[in-house]
């Protein structure tokens, strides 16, 4: 099995001052290793940095001429900075697809919750569900909003929130999740990706309404494949699982939210 591939950048767009969208040509990667939306790739960011950077798959497709992968990432530090400086035609060293994403069923109806840079992987979920899902998307402010048009195209309903009220609901996504579930809790599951405090709150709300909830956890990674045991995620039962191999998506009830 091949896990590491040189992938060409087919397109690059800046979505705002910090967020970049790349479309990559990834050979047979999707066909070989796609399981479900919410998986991630592990990207080498230049010679000067030892560790790869995990980036979630935003969306992907198999293709005769080479599978396609869309990544959306935010410039945070040296690695993502380097990545954001790549140009169309450049080649990236990508390992993937890795991990277990959200086990969405094509016939399911989901409440998709994304916060900040946790928004992109939810788009993949939206797209496997033929427009039946509802999306709740939260951003720092209006100028940080990304992919809203895309979600509107692929969801039955899109609710927006910003921390500063510059767009949509003034506040956090968990309030919108509560509002939505109060109106309609006929969802197969709540699926969420974003900062840990957000995930914790969303999980709590889902739990109150008795709706299953799956969350995608962000942990610092080494190998990305389950061998080095650094990407630890504490479970309620006292065990420590690994985001790259056992996750990054976990059942919110299994996660120990108190650490």
């Amino acid at each position, binding site marked *: 099995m091949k896990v590491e591939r040189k992938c060409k950048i087919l397109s690059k767009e800046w979505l705002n001052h910090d967020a970049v969208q790349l479309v990559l040509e990834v050979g047979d990667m999707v066909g070989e290793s796609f399981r479900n939306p919410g998986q991630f790739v592990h990207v080498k960011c230049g010679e000067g940095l*030892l560790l790869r950077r995990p980036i979630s798959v935003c969306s992907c497709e198999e293709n005769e001429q080479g599978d396609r992968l869309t990544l959306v990432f935010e410039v945070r530090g040296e690695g993502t900075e380097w990545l954001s400086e790549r140009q169309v035609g450049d080649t990236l060293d990508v*390992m993937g697809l890795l991990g277990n994403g959200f086990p969405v069923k094509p016939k399911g109806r989901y409440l998709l919750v994304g916060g900040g840079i946790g928004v992109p992987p939810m788009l993949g979920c939206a797209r496997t569900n033929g427009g039946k899902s509802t999306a709740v998307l939260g951003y720092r402010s209006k100028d940080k909003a990304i992919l809203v048009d895309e979600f509107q195209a692929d969801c039955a309903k899109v609710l927006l929130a910003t921390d500063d009220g510059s767009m949509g609901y003034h506040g956090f996504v968990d309030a919108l999740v509560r509002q939505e579930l109060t109106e309609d809790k006929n969802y197969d599951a709540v699926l969420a990706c974003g900062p840990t405090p957000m995930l914790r709150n969303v999980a709590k709300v889902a739990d109150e309404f008795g709706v299953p909830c799956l969350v995608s956890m962000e942990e610092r990674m080494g190998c990305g494949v389950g061998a080095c*045991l650094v990407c630890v995620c504490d479970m309620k039962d006292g065990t420590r699982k690994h985001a790259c191999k056992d996750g990054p998506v976990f059942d919110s009830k299994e996660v120990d939210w108190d650490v």
Partner: protein
Amino acid sequence: MCKLILRPIRDEKPDRSVRPAAPEENLPPVDMSVTLAGMTMKNPVVVASGTFGFGREYGQFYDLSELGGICAKGLTLHRREGNPGPRIAETPMGILNSVGLQNPGVDAFIETELPFLRQYDVKVIANISGNSPEEYGIMCEKLSEAGVDMIEVNISCPNVKAGGLAYGTRPELAAEVTEVAKAHAGKVPVMVKLSPNVTDITEIAKAVEGAGADAVSLINTLRGMRIDINTRRPILKMNTGGLSGPAVLPVAVRMVWEVSNAVKIPVLGMGGISKGEDAAQMMLAGATAVAVGTALFADPYAPLTVRDGLEKIAARQGLSAVSQLTGGVKPW
């Protein structure tokens, strides 16, 4: 003379914008096998403990039989969940880790992981850490009965509070652990893994040699720290962790050189190896074989790259066997 000067120099005008092809190399075959404390491996490249799990993950990408040996993830007598996260931080050409020996315990290894590894034509080295000499003894007994190829006694893990590090920094404790391990390991060779966080590593090496160790491996990680300047928190939840990766290579080469001059038992060299040249340095410094760890995270195929690079270097130097590199450095 004059005629010579006027002779045309280049017979044809090549395209100067592309690099001319290199002359073809016809490299002779090299015997890549090495023998470390009686254990013969098909090549000198081992994967370092804790960076390769029990082989299952990387085994999806290539045949584990390509490797010389596998140092399995560090085992303890009982299952351990290890330290809380974050457990990794990146540093210039290095990483810090504070995994803290998360592992299923020695019995689970013997029952579940060893049979998996035994499917492959590769030497299996079990790596053990204990809280007391007795624990080391019990583990050695179990592992020697189960039939591993070698036992690597870790007296140098900087990521566990009890035992670990102290054994590695005090010669008399290191010797004691070694003696107990040897007494319980039966015919399985015992290799002791040394800590670089010491004033004089040869003292410890001599102590464990005196206590009967069949080999030493070095270096384990150097203790380091990284701070998130915005949160003002250490990135690692344990505050400090062990430094590995290319950054430590020169320290590792120096220590391998010192140790191999101080003891007669063979050395497994590691610390920062990511290419054939690094491995060749380590062998010239005195290592019989080498281990590759952190380099895996940048490139899962790193051990194979190191092996192929080493073979090419040996062939280019006209060596018939890669083992001819060992100890070949000529100090000034």
